[in-house]
């Protein structure tokens, strides 16, 4: 194994990990505000990929331009799903029930996607998808660089929204203590709905990059959700910063292990690290017992 291969694997890991971090951020935001484990996040990513596919193939809209349509669309889908299905879940069993309800939603969406698009794999195509640029002797794919830049912009926007706006203050208050937030006049129900919408909206961007770098069908969501759940558990459930750090860290470690010891060890290492860290810090790297926002 050469030093350049190692450096290349680290670059690959950071670029890919940032997109996973973006997808995981939506998941952890939803859990943080609503105490809902959205196992449908994977299928929403695939739904985002299919929306980009439909716009690209049928209307000739560029993948990144199409995000101007797919992100608001999935935001609205999230709002509807939260209002129709999730807002009804209450009580001490809320977390467990949320898993069942979102799993059911996931199955319905999977079935619908199979009917509309068939089970045949598709992939998103654009001039930049298969091209790359040489930087310091490494070929870096445009799509990963663009995906990285997009993830940075969207995560920055999310950060700005959370820490520089009045709505963000409401979200953080709801994250810390929903009862106290309600007592000071915050409409926690509306905050939850909008957060769910935002959490789903980011999957449009993640889905587009996923679809441009992987052939996919509706069943691809299963591999995604297991990985996303590991990332948010490792980062600390509800921690935005944790999801970001864990996403980049885990994918980079996986890629480095793949190059050093071989690909067959990478998945094992991925889960081994999770077990080791959780045994030391059960709340995850950035998870806190009282306030879960990093």
């Amino acid at each position, binding site marked *: 194994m050469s030093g*350049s291969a190692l450096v*290349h694997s680290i670059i690959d890991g950071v670029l*890919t990990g940032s997109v996973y971090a973006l997808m995981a951020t939506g998941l952890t935001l939803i859990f943080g505000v609503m105490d809902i484990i959205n196992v449908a996040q994977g299928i929403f990513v695939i739904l985002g990929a299919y929306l980009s596919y439909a716009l690209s193939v049928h209307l000739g809209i560029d993948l990144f331009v199409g995000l101007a349509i797919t992100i608001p669309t999935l935001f609205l889908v999230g709002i509807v799903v939260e209002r129709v299905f999730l807002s009804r879940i209450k009580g001490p069993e809320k977390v467990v029930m949320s898993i069942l309800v979102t799993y059911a939603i996931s199955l319905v969406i999977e079935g619908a996607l199979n009917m509309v698009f068939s089970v045949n*794999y598709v*992939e998103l*195509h654009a001039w930049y998808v298969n091209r790359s640029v040489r930087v310091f002797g490494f070929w870096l794919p445009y799509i990963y660089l663009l995906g990285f830049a997009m993830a940075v912009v969207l995560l920055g926007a999310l950060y700005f929204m959370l820490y520089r706006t009045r709505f963000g203050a409401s979200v953080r208050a709801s994250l810390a203590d929903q009862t106290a937030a309600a007592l000071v006049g915050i409409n926690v129900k509306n905050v939850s709905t909008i957060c769910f919408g935002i959490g789903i909206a980011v999957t449009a961007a993640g889905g587009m990059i996923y679809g441009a770098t992987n052939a996919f069908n509706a069943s691809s969501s299963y591999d995604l959700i297991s990985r996303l759940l590991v990332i948010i558990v490792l980062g600390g459930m509800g921690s935005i910063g944790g999801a970001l750090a864990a996403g980049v860290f885990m994918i980079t470690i996986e890629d480095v292990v*793949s190059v050093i010891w071989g690909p067959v060890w990478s998945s094992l290492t991925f889960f081994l690290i999770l077990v080791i860290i959780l045994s030391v810090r059960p709340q995850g790297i950035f998870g806190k017992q009282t306030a879960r926002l990093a």
Partner: protein
Amino acid sequence: MIKRKGLFSTLSVASVALATLFTFSSPGGASSSGTIAKGQPVLIGTSLSLSGDFSADGTAFQQGYELWAADQNARGGLLGHKIQLKIVSDASSPTQVVTNYQDLISSDHVDLTFGPFSSLLTLPAAKAVARYGYAMVEGAGGAPSVFQAGLTNVFDSALPVASGLVPFAKWIASLPKSQRPTSIAYVTSTDPFTEPQIPVAEKIIKAAGVKTVYYKTFPAEATDYTPIADAVASAKAQVVILGSVDVPTVSAFMQAFEQAHYNPKAFIATAGPDQGSAFTKAVGLGNADGMMVPNAWFGGSKNAMSEKMVAEYIKKYGGTAADVNADVAEAYSVGQVITQAVEKTGGFNNAKIISYLHSGVTIQSVLGPVKFNSLGENIKPTAFTFQWQGSNFVEVNPATDPGAVKILYPKPAWKN
């Protein structure tokens, strides 16, 4: 004392229940008599991967089974009984597939069973079905692990996987030294379908003096292939043999190779390029050019049965012969094997069907002749190498075969 009395009562009830169960059941299972009342349909059960990792293949298998059933019903069914398929989904899960076959036999009382998709699922499925004395004819379980399990009820109508890459390896070895590649990379998924193929090919290619510069396996559940593909590209092998089970794996490697500006002189994948339009839609027709895959069947096969099936497929689903997934033909052949077995044994008795299929008979199918050895492997098929050349999917190896066209070598540059 009261507790002990309760225990005895429970044991007594359980014993009676078990005795009743054994009295009214038989090793032959639900269809041990092998007779179906006049006017009743023959029920054939199968579990297919209609969701999950193998959903594209599972759906193609469903098309193949349904095409066969429609054709056979148009000819009067099986021994005058209309064929009714009971297809359930296993979500590509080796545990769900067992549950499905148990349910199909014990609850749905199917008369016959057809195999699932992939060696990974066929092995547990065949074991489950064997407990009921049922035959399992299948078209996608050709891994050595399936035949080494000591089962006598499993019959694979397709090509045994271990020999799949042999024509390609022999072709590499046969090239004049000036054209022969000097280096090769092997990278394979940890799957019973892919892993057995690589050592067989490596042995032939290594003997021809081609240096192995990369040989790694990757987990079947991998989703990020970039670092693996980058490592292969860094090794700069002139030939790549990829042990893949599906389109996404091949597609990911092709994309990463193109991004790394690496174009091997020959690139063969064990599965993926054989999936017709499902492959070209994912990778783009331009990039498919020159990609190779081993198999025993393709849409342009001159076999009359195959031509008829392809015509029917196109009539029903559209597309061209090159678009027809090899899975469709493999599934169709399963029905043809069962047709002959049922007609020759004169009924639906699974024990008789198993015995008949072990008798050394040759059965004609869309895949060509089928003849099973004592392990249930089809010993008749010839392994071919197929290649995408433009929009055509053509046979290129063995070069001596009358249907073979000149191989596109070196592989054209990436075109997307």
